[in-house]
Structure formats: C-alpha cells, structure tokens
C-alpha cells in the first residue's frame, strides 16, 4: 500500500508538468494579452510593460523561466493585481473557498447519501419517487437561481443571515448550502443507483436469510459496496467544490479562489491562470489518490499490493 501511495505521489510531477505545458502554450495562443485595454496603450509603453514582465523574451525562454520558478514553488507576481504574488492570492483566498467547500461537501454528503439510502430502501415507492424528484430539481436548478432564492428567504425575509459578505462565521452558511445542493442531488442519485446494484447480490440475500435486521444489512453489507460510485465521484467533486465557484462567490460576494480562477483567464493574467490551474490540478490528483485508497477499504476485490 505504501509503495502504491509513493508511486502515485511521484506520478504527480509529470502530470503537473503536462498540465503546465498545455496551459502555458494554450494561454499564449488566445488573442489579446494582459496589457490590452480599451484605452490603447502607446507602443513604447507596451514594450516597457513587456520588458518588466519578461514578455519580450522568446516564448520558449519564458516557458523555461516559468518552469524554473515553479520548481522553486514561486508562482510569480500577478499581472493584474500587481501588489500581490500568485502565491499570496492563493494563500489568501483558498482557505475561504475550502471552508465553504468543506461545509458544503459535508452537507451534500449527509443529505445526498441519506436520501439515496432512503430512496433505495424501498425502490419504486412514493418515498423513492419523492426523493428522486427532489434530487432532480437540485440538479436542474443552477446555483445562480438557488443562491438568490436562499438569500431572499433566509437573509431578506427571515433575516437569519447577512445578505452577503464575509465578516462573521455565519456568513459561511448560505454559500455552503448553495454550493452543496447540486452535489447533494448527485450524491443521492449515485447512492441510490449503487445500492440498487448491490441489493440484488447473493451476499445480501444471505444476510437477509440469516435473519439480520433490515438496517444492519443496509449499513453493514449493502452500503459498503453501494457507496462505490459515490466515492469515485467524491474525488473530482471535492476538488471542484473546495476550489470554489465563481457563481456562488460572486452572488454572496465572498473572497474565494473560484472568482480568480475564472477572471484570471478573462484578464489574460498569465501567471494567475497558471498558478490557479496548477493548484487545482494538484488538488484533483491528491483527491483522486485519496479516493483510490478509500476504494481499497470499501472493495475487497481491489488491492494495491
């Protein structure tokens, strides 16, 4: 197992290198640049700007320079937010996204898995249809609808929370709920499908035949196999949810990473694009590794040794 983890950790390096290379050159292919603006900058000033950011060098040299920097853990200064480095921006905004994401994820897992179990425990019953109908709504309603809806109900009508902002601990709640709802719906459907798959297996029938109570069969036997699809979705979902969402962050005006991820691309803030892409890639790789490890515990047929 340890060997497997080490091997996987080592494979992170080539993965990140490929991601960095593709992003670097794709980004430079996009028309426009960090210094293009509505008020056209005179040619000479543009050259001053390019010199300052080493953009006057040939592209391969810039690429090598950048990789050298990244190897040292330095993601460079942001082109747009000039008084901050990319490292600082990530350090300042990721914790916000992560806290909101973590809470959202816990909420999504709890609601999603429970309602999945609830639905699967009596397939094709009213409870199944009801919970699946709700999860369908959860999937279909985009967060830019759910967010303002929550805001309207809980912040403006009931006044339980602030409309937006990031000043008190309770400001986490609405963004986390908004973020989690869609994932809860996915988790519910995946859990239900997973359980229904397992429930027809021989070993479950055996467990029933031995006279085990229904809940014990569910939690000891069915769930172990039934959760596999949910767990494999958890990896990418966790990476996505932890790095924040542009929509949720701008609706609730919270200072997370998601906004920078999207806006850096629109601003052609080359270093910030690279930095956030690499950071998120790293997160996805690590999450997937965790998922693979969890697999080994859930499914005895999988072994990494």
């Amino acid at each position, binding site marked *: 197992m340890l060997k497997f983890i080490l091997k996987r950790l080592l494979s992170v390096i080539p993965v990140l290198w490929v991601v960095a290379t593709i992003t670097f050159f794709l980004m430079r292919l*996009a*028309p*426009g640049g960090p210094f*293009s603006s*509505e008020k056209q900058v005179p040619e000479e*000033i543009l050259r001053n700007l390019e010199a300052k950011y080493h953009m006057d060098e040939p592209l391969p040299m810039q690429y090598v320079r950048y990789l050298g920097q990244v190897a040292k853990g330095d993601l460079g200064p942001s082109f747009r937010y000039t*008084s901050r480095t990319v490292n600082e921006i990530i350090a300042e905004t990721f914790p916000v996204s992560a806290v909101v994401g973590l809470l959202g994820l816990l909420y999504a897992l709890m609601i999603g898995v429970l309602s999945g179990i609830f639905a699967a425990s009596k397939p094709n019953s009213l409870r199944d249809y009801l919970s699946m109908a709700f999860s369908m709504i959860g999937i279909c309603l985009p967060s830019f609808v759910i967010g303002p809806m929550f805001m309207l109900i809980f912040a403006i009508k009931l006044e339980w929370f602030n409309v937006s*902002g990031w000043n008190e601990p309770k400001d986490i709640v609405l963004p986390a709920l908004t973020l989690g709802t869609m994932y809860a719906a996915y988790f519910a459907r995946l859990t239900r499908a997973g359980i229904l798959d397992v429930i027809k297996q021989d070993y479950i029938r055996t467990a029933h035949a031995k006279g085990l109570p229904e809940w014990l069969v569910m939690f000891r036997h069915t769930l172990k196999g039934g959760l596999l699809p949910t767990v494999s979705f958890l990896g990418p979902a966790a990476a996505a949810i932890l790095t924040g969402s542009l929509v949720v962050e701008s609706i609730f*005006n919270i200072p997370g990473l998601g906004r920078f991820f999207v806006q850096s691309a629109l601003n052609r803030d080359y270093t910030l694009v690279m930095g956030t892409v690499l950071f998120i890639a790293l997160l996805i790789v690590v999450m997937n590794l965790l998922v693979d490890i969890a697999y080994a515990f859930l499914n005895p047929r999988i072994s990494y040794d």
Partner: protein
Amino acid sequence: MSGFTRVLGVFLPLVLMNVSCTKCNKESTQALPSAQSKTGQTFKEAADQTLNLGNGAEPKEIDPALVTGEPDGNVVFNIFEGLVTLDNDTLEPQPAVAESWTISPDGKTYTFKIRKNAKWSDGSELTAEDFVWSWTRVLTPMTASEYAYQLYYVKNGEDFNKGKIKDPNMLGLKAPDKYTFVVELAHPTPFFLKLCAFYTLNPTPKQVVTKFPGQEWTKEENIVSNGPYKLVEWKLNRHIKAVPNEYYWDKDAVKLKEIYFYPIENSDTEEKMFLSGKLHLTNTVPPLRIPKYEEEAKKMGADATYRAFPQLASYFYRFNVKRKPVDDWRVRRALALTIDRTALVKNILHAGQVPATSFTPPVHGYSFKGDLPETVTPAAIAEAKKLLAEAGYPDGKGMEKIEIHYNTLEAHKKIAVAIQSMWKTNLGIDVGLFNQEWKVYLDTQVKMDFTVSRAGWVADYPDPNTFLDMFVTGGGNNKTNWSNKDYDHYIEQAGQTMDEAKRFDYFHKAEAILLKELPVLPIYFYTRPRLATPLLKRIVGGKYVVWVPNVIDRTVYKNFVLVEKI
C-alpha cells in the same frame, strides 16, 4: 440641535432625468431655498460616521503611477492628493497640495507653491522634490506606467519614457526649493492644470516605494499616502478600509470616520446589500430593475434612493473606413441617419441616457450641436436613401455585407440587435452581428479586422480634447483608419491656444469635420445609475446639500457627512 443642523432641500426630479451636465451642477447649490418649505425636514450629524460603498470590481492596484481602472481610482482619489483637485461641482482646479500657482504668459511654465503643512501620512514632509521624484518615476520606462502618456506634455517627457533620453535631469521638472515646483511643458497645454488632479500625477511616497521590493509598498502594512484618508486595510475581494489621515493639511474638512470600499461585481447582490442597509451607495443598478426604481423615484421625490447621473462618456460605433461599403462617407451618413437614438435610450437602456447627436458630450462650456437625428424622421430616411443611391447602392442593393462587432455583453447585444432591425426597416439592408469575448474583441479592434465595431470612451479630464484628439491621424485610439489633415490641424491648434473661446472654436471646427465624415457613429452619452441613501450629505457653506456626483464621476469624500433625521 447642533449648530450644523440645517433645513434640507431636495430637488430630485430635476436631476433625475437627463438634464445636461452643466445644468445639473448648478442645481445642487441653487435649489435649497425653494425646496425648504416643501419637505421641512431637519437633520443632524449621525453618531456613526462609517460610509459603506459599492466599488464594482476588486482594485488592480493603488499605486497612483500604475492605476488605470475606475475602482482603483475611487480609492486613490481619496487616499492621495495631487497639486490641485477638481471642485466637485464646477470641476475647476482648486488648491490642494499646491496652495497657489502661476502660469507663464506663453503657457509653457507652471510654478506651483507647495503648502508648508503638506505632509505624508507617516508625518514626514511632502515637498516639491517629492513631485519631481514621483513624476520622473511615472516616466521611467521600467516603471511601466500605462498612463505615462499623461505626462508626455512635460518637456522631454515623451522621449524619456520612450528611452530616447536617458538623463532624468533633462525633464522639465525642477524643485528650486522645498516649496517650489516648476514644470516646463513641451507645448502650451491648456488643460494641463486639470490634468494635475489626475491620479497618475499624484505624488508617491519615495520613502516607502524605494524601501520595499516590487509593489509591496502598496500593502496595507506599508503604504503611506497624502490624501484626506489613509488606507488601513486591504483584504482581497473583501474590502478596503480607509480612515482619516491625521497629517492631512485640511483634516478638519474630513468628517467621515471610516470608509469601506466593497468590491461587489454582481449588481443584484449589490442591490440586495443596499436594500438590507449594508451599503450607503451602490456602484450601479441592475439594468432590469431600473424602470421599477425610476417609477418609484417619481413617487417618492425627496426620499428616493435611485438616481441616474450624466457622465462624460460616449457610446459609439467605429467604422473601418478602409472597408467597403463604409469607406464611403455617404454610406456612413446614411447609416447614422437611420438610427432611432431616442428609442434605444428609452426602450433598452432606461437610465436616462442622452441620445448623442454629436460625438463629444457637453463638457465645461463646450457643446456641439450635431445634425444627427434623435429619432428617425421621414426626411432623414429620404436623405439616407438618396445618399445610398449616390454611393452606388440604390435601396441597399449590391452592398457588401456589414457585421456589427461587439464585446459579449447583454446590453451591447440588445443595442446591436435594435440597430440591426432599424437599418433593415429604414434602409432595407441586412446586417449581421458578431460578438467576441472582451480581450479577443480588443485584439480584433487593434488589428482593424471589422467593418463596424462598438466602442465607448470615458473622459480622463473634463475637456473636449480627451474625446477629440482620439481621431488625429495615426492616434493610438483612432482605430478607424480615418485621417483628415484639416482635422489634425484644428486639434493641434486647439492644443496650443490658451484662450478658451478660441480653443473651443477650433474644437467646433474639428468636430464639424468629424460629424460630416463620420468615421464614428455616435449613439448615446452615458449616465451612471446609482442607489444612494439620501442621508449622505455634502457640507457646502455650512449647509447640508444633496450630493450630485460630477460628470467624471470623481468623488473625494471631503466635507461629506452622514446625517439622521431629527
């Protein structure tokens, strides 16, 4: 009741709709007595003097030398101060760091007297030497200031910035003593004094700029400034907090205790924050909600929170005059004659924008009455059809395909679609639309790969020159391929004439050429819709007056106060 308590007058309906810019500035002071009797409300200073503002996007930068954006400017204008500042209403230069100045008869030498009590927020003295250093810094190539060209008027400024001159001592900037700052210009520049209020020309604190690497001096723990306020907190995408600068020379005029600038990009969120009392002033209003607010404002009068303010900004289309069919001025004029500008403003934009019959919005005593129609008249259509026929396209037949190019945004799309249908109805020509993401759109414009392209221009300083010098031959922002010798001549002459009336005459002549040849298609002049609490007042002559943002949307929160009703 405090001595400050005054009866307040409100004159909202006058300001609400598109009164011309020069007019609305006057109204803010003259309306007091008549409105007194109507509302009869009295106010006193509120206990809590914390002002919360919506500031659009997260500022990129707060180094005056590097700043270019509006959210950045809003902060910089309050924490830094230049030699002069512009009066909130008249936009005339007022003494600031410079207590007085003299201009040589040839208009080329400006001598500023720096006030002796001018200080940085760390308590150190602010001297003429600071200006020499700061302006030199802006012009130094390695500073890479995008707005360095605002100082190209200084003698040798352009050559120094372009690296043709290496010696900073050759710049026309001198400090003969601590309190005298002498600027020598390359040419007489009539608007130079107004430019001195622009952020690029603000002083920057040498003592910290040189102390920290890169731009780290602008961090909350390092920054030193010289304006009425100083920055104490800068939380990324959360807020910027400014408090009064105790070393400011005119600190008694600073009444607010704290200002929070909130970066809120989502206008719906901003509106909800305003409605729940978290903001005193919004940056904008969601476009779809404007009709509702306008309706409300009419009923509420004095207590209305919604207002739309005229701006010194022009919305227009550029023609690529090297492309058929718009290479012919007759085609361009036909297109310009058949747009119903009033309908666009009323039915699509809603916020009291002004249909543009000329290119330059009325500014500072300058206005040009163009002959473009506000609404489409049968006469205009007849003239347009005749022009099209003369250009060789009777009823639009045989005309090369025109596409309207714009950056991806709902409002631009709506306008383009409406104009598309106006041209179809009035001239019978089919026009295509194509939109591009912002940076791609800019790239297309630079490469001149368009026939008709949407554009906007916001004034840097309150003078027609900021609009009209754009279209001189080869100008970086010309982007039309248009060139006219007479036009170039008039703009050049205007740039060297100190007499205002003569200068405006040159501008009139230039704009007449522009509107005859129409390399651009004027559409409307912007307004800025805002939600603002009626409790935010300016103190003018010891009286509370309703604050009317000026046409360049530049506000220094000096002599501002939050009040409450008694």
